[in-house]
């Protein structure tokens, strides 16, 4: 280990006490990647703080030593956003998992960043509330990670993303200061840009989340179609009718096959596509709209419709969809997941192009997607023991992102850019766009030590670094009054 890191490890150890600093190479390996396992890097030091003050002290120590650091929650991210630095410190927030306050009259809760997403819901469910963001990993992902990634989930079609459900954050800035950012306070909405900045602007140590009233009714149906096109027609018809479902999910034949092999979800045999539509809200609203959704599915050619009679049947309908990612392991030794977004109306064209890409390249692509908001999760299948297969899969994967951009979409709907997609950012944004975003980063982290190398393909030079500023601040004198 380099002397700087060695000295830092000793300092952190003295600061945090026993069992909070890991430098043993074998134990460090546990942290070499997040949910995206094809990027790996063993951190030099792992720290496990218990308090916000400790996180602040760690960040200050790193800043003084000039050592980069990365924050990590549960490590479930799918873009390598929490990929450690071999020359840096990994700050793991998993010990900070207290729910500090539940305020039902105010419809909010205050939690530490290591609290598991679903545990927030479990804690407030008895009062008739829940935490709305529901990424598929919600049983293990942390709220701090949700904040960093602005996580979505199947139900963000109606309820929005993490950014809409976070009212405030206590943040350790890259200066090692503890500050409060609020959605509704005076001054700039720094919270708005902090959420979804993928851990590049600081580390959140306390989060005030909005709690959502559990809907009176949830109704779920599964509709089977001959083809993806027919399913797509149903989606357009539902949205066109002014219905805002809680979720609309679609799977194609290949992903249905995988789910069947893995979890025996028993979706209708012979389906070229299945659509899962969920409505929630007041009884009377859902009843009227659900009948309409059912009719629209039939009109679009659904040959079978199953309606969940209770929560158990609902779980059965969702089982195939929720297991889809893991299930492709049953039909392919390896796969890449994409997270591109397209305008919903472009679904038929884009899916046809993906089919063509797959046929030309001989690379199979299974499609699972949040159809309601045009968020595709193509699973690009390959055999990693076959020479060149991974490269071909990577090529198809990149071509799919190009298709998304070409149709006015995005390279990522919910997984984040991380290290995985930063090279695609210049295809979506101009140099000026990226430079402008990084002005925010320069304001927060001029030294570039906070999760460097993520989101942006090229770091921006920030110019003046705080601490070396000479003379009085230009606002001095006026600042205290107004």
């Amino acid at each position, binding site marked *: 280990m380099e002397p700087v890191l060695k000295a830092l490890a000793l300092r952190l150890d003295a600061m945090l006490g026993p069992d909070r600093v890991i430098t043993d190479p074998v134990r460090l390996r546990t942290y070499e990647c997040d949910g995206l396992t094809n990027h790996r890097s063993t951190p030099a030091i792992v720290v496990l703080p218990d308090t916000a003050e400790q996180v602040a002290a760690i960040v200050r120590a790193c800043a003084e030593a000039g050592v980069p650091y990365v924050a990590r929650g549960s490590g479930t991210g799918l873009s390598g956003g929490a990929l450690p630095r071999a020359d840096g410190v990994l700050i793991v927030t998993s010990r900070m998992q207290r729910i500090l306050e539940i305020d*039902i*009259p*105010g*419809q909010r809760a205050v939690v530490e960043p290591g609290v598991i997403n679903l545990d927030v819901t479990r804690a407030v469910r008895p009062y008739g509330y829940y935490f709305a963001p529901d990424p598929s990993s919600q049983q293990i992902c942390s709220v701090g990670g949700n904040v960093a*990634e602005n996580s979505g989930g199947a139900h963000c079609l109606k309820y929005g993303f993490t*950014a*809409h459900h976070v009212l405030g954050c206590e943040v350790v800035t890259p200066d090692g200061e503890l*500050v*409060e950012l609020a959605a*509704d306070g*005076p*001054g*700039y*909405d*720094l919270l*708005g*840009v902090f959420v979804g900045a993928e851990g590049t602007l600081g580390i959140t140590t306390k989060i005030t989340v909005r709690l959502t009233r559990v*809907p009176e009714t949830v109704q779920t149906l599964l509709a089977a179609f001959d083809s993806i096109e027919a399913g797509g027609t149903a989606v*357009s018809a539902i949205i066109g009718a*002014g*219905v*805002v479902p809680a979720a609309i999910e679609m799977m194609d034949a290949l992903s249905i096959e995988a789910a069947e092999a893995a979890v025996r979800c028993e979706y209708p045999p012979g389906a070229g596509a299945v659509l899962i539509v969920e409505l929630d809200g*007041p*009884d*009377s*609203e859902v*009843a*009227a709209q659900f009948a309409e959704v059912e009719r629209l599915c039939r009109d679009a050619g659904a040959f079978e419709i199953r309606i969940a009679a209770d929560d158990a049947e609902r779980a059965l309908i969702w089982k195939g969809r929720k297991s889809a990612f893991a299930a492709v392991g049953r039909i392919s030794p390896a796969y890449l997941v994409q997270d591109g*977004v*397209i*305008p919903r109306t472009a679904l038929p064209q884009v899916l046809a192009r993906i089919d063509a890409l797959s046929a030309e390249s001989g690379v199979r692509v299974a499609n699972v997607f949040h159809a309601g*908001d*045009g968020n595709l999760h193509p699973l690009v299948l390959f055999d990693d023991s076959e020479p060149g297969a991974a490269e071909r899969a990577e090529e198809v994967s990149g071509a799919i992102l190009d298709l998304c951009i070409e149709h*006015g*979409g*995005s390279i990522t*709907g*919910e*997984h*984040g*850019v991380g290290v995985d997609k930063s090279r695609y950012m210049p295809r*979506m944004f*101009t140099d000026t*766009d*990226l430079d*402008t*975003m990084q*002005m*925010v*980063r320069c*304001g*927060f982290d*001029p030294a570039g030590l906070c999760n460097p190398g993520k*989101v942006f393909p090229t770091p921006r030079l920030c110019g003046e670094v705080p601490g070396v500023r000479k003379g009085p601040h*230009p*606002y001095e004198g*006026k*600042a205290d*009054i*107004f």
Partner: protein
Amino acid sequence: MQPLDALAKVCDDVRTGEPEEGVLGVQPALVAAPASVAEAAEVMRVAAEKGLSVIPRGAETRLDWGTPPERCDLLVDTHRLDKLIEHASGDLVAKAEAGLPLETLAERLEEKGQRLSLDVPLPGSTVGGTIAAGAAGPLRTLYGTPRNLVIGLTVVRADGKVARSGGKVVKNVAGYDLGRLFSGSYGTLGLIVDATFRLHPVPTATAWVTCQVDGPQEAHDAVQAVLHSPVAPSALEYIAPGTVAALLEGVPDGVVARAGQLVELLGGKTDITENAPDGCGAYPDGTTLIDVTAPPPSLSDLIGVVNSLGNGVAMTWNGSGHGHIGLPSGLSAEEVAGALSALRDVLGRHKGGAVVRYAPQDVRSEIDLWGPVPALGLMRRVKDQFDPDHRLSPGRFVGGI
């Protein structure tokens, strides 16, 4: 070359400013009204070259908010940037230029049965001005403020370069969300030139359920009853002195059933009406407008303070935890400062606060408009990056930004 001539070379509509165009008494030397994003960029580039301070102007509905600018060499008027660039109804998104009035936008969207769920209280407000002020009306209960509805933003930077963030799909986490950063930034970070919004279908049926309450405790109880009920109102408002009103939107049968549920829940003096009750959706009367962050549990305390401030103090409050207080004319600066400090004391206990939007000029210069601003140092550093020479709306915002 003189600034006027340099600007005239890049923009068709450039002239000297008039006294009545003053921003809180500061007369602009020049006014430019670019007609395209490219022209706006050129105007900003020339302003940078000549070192001109710049204040963006939409429809002037909120130009009197905040603190007076230190100077105003150039007013950039957005009224010619008034195009609806795209309404992709199948995708429920629309992209509009900054100077487009929200009413005009609403009319165009309505043709396809859609709306931007932002019922801004001041008629005439533009797309850009609304975002810059972070303004929202009663619908914020369900739909939030511009920060929740802007999915893509184009700005011209202080140096004249055009920068975009977000895009035209709702679900998108690529890069930093500058739409949220610019929401409520008072024209101090850049010139907003166009924005893309997520839209919602216009509901087929609506109803207001209005209940009369007597005193802070009854108001609190009525609000809590609605918030924790399953009726999912689009708007929930308290209007002083004693009205609690909820807006229900949906399908006809659904709205009738939900309205019935609410009447039962609230009991007593409750009516179902087609229109919003008086005073709903407007800023309260008065010559001083105070914007308060006041979470639902603080409502009874807030009403208590407002009552203690004496006659003629008006108030509206939204279930999202946000309200407005209107103070009558004729109050001295000390009296306004006293009212502010009483509000901040009480709301501070609920993690809320109070910010003055406008006040008579002699009062405004004597009071602290913003109250405590956490993370001010960080805000200054962000401002320094976007506008290193402090030429954009200088002095209009928190901490002298």
